[in-house]
């Protein structure tokens, strides 16, 4: 009897152990696959030609596989989106956490979670039919599908992440800080921006890092509004991101070709970017935990 129950206990333990470790296995699987399939093309093309080449022309002879345009476009696009999204997000978060009454707060929070829930292809569709023509007319350029349109769409898409994380950290600021400031004669609004916001700075930094991660990883909305030509980035020109470089050519790059392998290398570069951003995000999240 005792033996039987011990066997059961051990089996159950084994099953749960496997289930527990499965996330680790998945991360290893993804990393190993990306590294194995991404390295060969970089070797064959050459490190410098791949990372610093300005031309991407896999179908021309001789083929060219420079991904500098994609890297720079992704960096500029993400920076632009975060630059626009962060102030709007932070102001909204301060308003929600400190000033809004309960009804307005729940209303705006619903709006924010809806914004987070709208599928990226819907953002792409609306961007394609509303924003792109608008940009074309407003700046008098031949085609509105450009880096600018992508930045605007991305800045809307990063808003929910920035608002939610900032909001959580603003609400965790100890009440005594604010009360002290108010007692010394500062007005409420001054207190929110001079005391509460600096006190929540690790959380705000985490919010921005999360926004950067969202923006740099977005593919579908961006592919629909950015025009998708492999130009060096410029605000009013059609551009291609790291994500869209992978998604737009994967369907027709012939199996086993250098072209296809180069697309895997681009994915590897994107993955490395994401890992760096995740590390930054975790650093700030840990710091925030330490502060509270």
């Amino acid at each position, binding site marked *: 009897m005792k033996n039987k129950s011990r066997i059961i206990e051990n089996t159950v333990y084994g099953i749960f152990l496997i289930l527990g470790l499965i996330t680790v296995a998945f991360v290893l699987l*993804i990393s190993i696959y990306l590294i194995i399939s991404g390295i060969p093309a970089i070797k064959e093309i050459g490190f410098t030609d791949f990372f610093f080449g300005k031309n991407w022309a896999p179908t021309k002879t001789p083929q060219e596989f420079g991904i500098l345009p994609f890297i720079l476009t992704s960096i500029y696009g993400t920076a632009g989106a975060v630059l626009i999204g962060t102030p709007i997000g932070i*102001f909204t978060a301060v*308003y929600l956490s400190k000033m809004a009454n309960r009804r307005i707060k729940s209303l705006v929070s619903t709006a924010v979670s809806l914004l987070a829930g*709208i599928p990226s292809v819907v953002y*792409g*569709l609306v961007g394609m039919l*509303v924003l792109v023509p608008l940009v074309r007319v407003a700046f008098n350029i031949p085609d509105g599908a450009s880096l600018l349109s992508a930045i605007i769409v991305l800045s809307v898409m990063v808003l929910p992440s920035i608002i939610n994380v900032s909001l959580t950290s603003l609400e965790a600021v100890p009440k005594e800080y604010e009360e002290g400031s108010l007692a010394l004669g500062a007005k409420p609004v001054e207190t929110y921006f001079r005391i509460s916001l600096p006190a929540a700075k690790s959380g705000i930094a985490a919010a921005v890092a999360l926004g950067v991660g969202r923006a740099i990883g977005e593919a579908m909305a961006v592919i629909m509004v950015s025009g998708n030509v492999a130009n060096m980035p410029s605000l009013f020109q059609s551009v291609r991101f790291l994500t869209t470089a992978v*998604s737009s050519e994967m369907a027709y790059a012939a199996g086993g070709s250098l072209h296809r392998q180069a697309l895997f290398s681009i994915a590897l570069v994107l993955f490395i970017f994401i890992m760096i951003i995740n590390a930054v995000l975790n650093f700030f999240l840990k710091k925030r935990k330490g502060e509270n």
Partner: protein
Amino acid sequence: MLGKVSKKRRFNIAVLKALMYLSAAVTCALVVFIIVYVLAKGVPNITWELISTKPSYLQNKIGILPDILNTVYIIFAALVIVLPLGAGAAVYLTEYAKNPKVVRAIEFAAETLSGIPSIIYGLVGMLFFCQFLGFGTSLMAGALTLVIMNLPTIMRTTQESLKTVPKGYKEGAFGLGAGKWRVIRTIVLPECVDGIVTGCILSVGRIVGESAALLFTAGFGHALNGIFEGLSSSGATLTVALYVYAKEQGEFEVAFVIAAILIVLTLIINISASLAGKYFKSRRNK
């Protein structure tokens, strides 16, 4: 005392206040605009024929029934697999794992998974499920890719709900001589339900909205299939179909119909998530 706030300070306060109101208003206006615009463009074009038939090149007509069914199949398949995996991982973390290094490794892995962009999932899914495991481009390969993506969500929500299990229950059961498995089965697992339901709703939302991870794993098929046949063949979900119709074929009317359906689904999912949250909270406080 009160009148002594200088002009400059008053001006700054007014500016900051205005910026706060403006930002909150912009956020809300964006949501309202997108929802109203998509519904206004999409709803008038919804016809019974469109949502109840499959596309036919011969008759030159489009139907989105296959896409709707594919979405349902893929949600079902992904959830059936991810729920036991995610809930099991959460039970392991809260009940079994003692080595802090192991716990940290698992939590780090979960965080990493939730930060990876869907296009990378799509690529690895294509390499691993479609090619290495031989599923080919199929809904099943797509569903398995979604399993990896949604694992952290289910894990997190289940973990949250397990934290609320009163310690006394477990200690009481152990004290009465129950084995670990018995305690988990009778006390811990029933408490998972909250977390699993919440995780389910969140995952359904994410799956409905997902497209980049499915492009190369589930593909673009528009055939009308039953669930088993459907899972083994290529199929476009609503989001992928929207992308194809809008970007490749310029069929904006159909694209907006799909977008309107997606928006309505998003609304329903959001409402159910908040209702579920409220319900579980009130039950717990009893």
